[in-house]
């Protein structure tokens, strides 16, 4: 079996998140009409991290960040075992610029479900997608991210694992193979 390959170690992880924040500021200025929505279950860590970093950089405390669960909107819930998580959006999305955040962009199906799920909270003015890892060769739907931490080429038998300080003890992204050889 192939040895897991580190894509981002904790130092680069921090640099990447900071760079993503500055890219966001370039477009969204002071975030007065922009909100962040993290997709459950793993996108919320990145969303919270970005919110925290933006708060530091902009010295602004009221940057809004919610979490959105897509389970009930998925097209594959009968094929997979899915457990719903909490949706917590305590602001109105109507006419806002939304930055949708997830950890890994793979087939694009989660994002598709996320776009559907978000409509229950209003009609946004504009939606952009931010991901930490873009597995660019594996899309099933015409969905692309605007802000990308790192693009990788990977095949279906490989898995990307994103670990977080909050839950796993360290920030790290690894690629490993699930194929038996």
């Amino acid at each position: 079996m192939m040895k897991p390959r580190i894509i981002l170690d904790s130092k680069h992880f921090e640099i990447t998140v900071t760079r993503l924040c500055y890219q966001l500021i370039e477009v969204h200025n002071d975030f007065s009409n922009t909100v962040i929505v993290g997709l459950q279950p793993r996108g919320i860590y990145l969303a919270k991290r970005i919110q925290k970093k933006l708060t530091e950089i902009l010295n602004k405390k009221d940057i809004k960040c919610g979490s959105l669960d897509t389970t009930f909107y998925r097209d594959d819930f009968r094929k997979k075992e899915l457990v719903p998580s909490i949706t917590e959006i305590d602001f109105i999305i109507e006419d806002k610029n939304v930055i949708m955040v997830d950890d890994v962009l793979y087939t694009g199906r989660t994002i598709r479900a996320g776009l559907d799920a978000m409509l229950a909270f209003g009609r946004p003015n504009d939606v952009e997608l931010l991901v930490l890892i873009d597995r660019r060769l594996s899309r099933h739907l015409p969905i692309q991210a605007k802000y990308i931490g790192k693009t990788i080429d990977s095949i279906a038998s490989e898995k990307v694992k994103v670990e977080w300080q909050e839950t796993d003890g360290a920030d790290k992204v690894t690629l490993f193979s699930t194929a038996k050889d």
Partner: protein
Amino acid sequence: MTKLSTKHLLGIKDLTTEDIQLILSTADSFKEVINRPIKKVPSLRDITIANLFFENSTRTKLSFELAEKRLSADVVNFASSSSSVKKGETLIDTVNNILAMKVDMVVMRHPNPGAAVFLSKHIDAKIINAGDGAHEHPTQALLDAFSIKERLGEIKGKKVVIVGDILHSRVALSNIFCLQKLGAEVMVCGPTTLMPKYIGSLGVKVEYNLRKALEWCDVANMLRIQLERQEIKYFPSLREYTMLFGLNKELLDSLSKKIVIMHPGPINRGVEITSDVADSDQSIILEQVENGVAVRMAVLFLLAGRA
């Protein structure tokens, strides 16, 4: 645990504790959904559900229908009073005809105990028991458990008394199974004539004095006297029943602690419970109704997710 251990919901007896916990935690998510401005999710948009009600119902029927519609399922309704059952068609024939119209799930209420189990053995669709005679009413027990958990934080170790017509009550039986699986202590209280003779085998406490039962419990579930199921007189008069087993404000206020009051509906105000108790802040009767939709959405969602 992300999947139910069963293909149908026939009774609480067949569910494992993990199944019940999975349903309750999924219902938490749906409760958030039904409190959104847009209460509908598309999960079951490719599923058709038949609601077969061979017995009258307001709450359960509306609640199931609403749950199905909020999950975007296609719904067909059937009430035996306006159907060919009256012309002598058998249950299996009726249901097979409905299934020939490509129905994926059947929600059924029937006056005969075991009707849902019978159906599950003969037809190829997922069956949800919405009450079968005096046997089980699983979704009611699940929503009761959900409501207790919501009010008291947890169910394990709590003391629940079920008061009234235990003999004819499917709510009582399903509640006993459900609460015991979740680690609560259960007591039943009612006239001796309305106590089933096998009650000892269920592992519940039995009490014939309402005050003693209420002093013991954290939660009191007050049942309706099911006159429609009583072919003979089980007690001299409703008035005597009310005097001995009816819950009024005076009795409630004289207890040493504040207990939670539940009722599965429909309420006979002034019989098993007085209006001021039913409408008091200790009562969670309307919360039960709201939670009913969320719990039924969870059951439908989880069963539909099973291949």
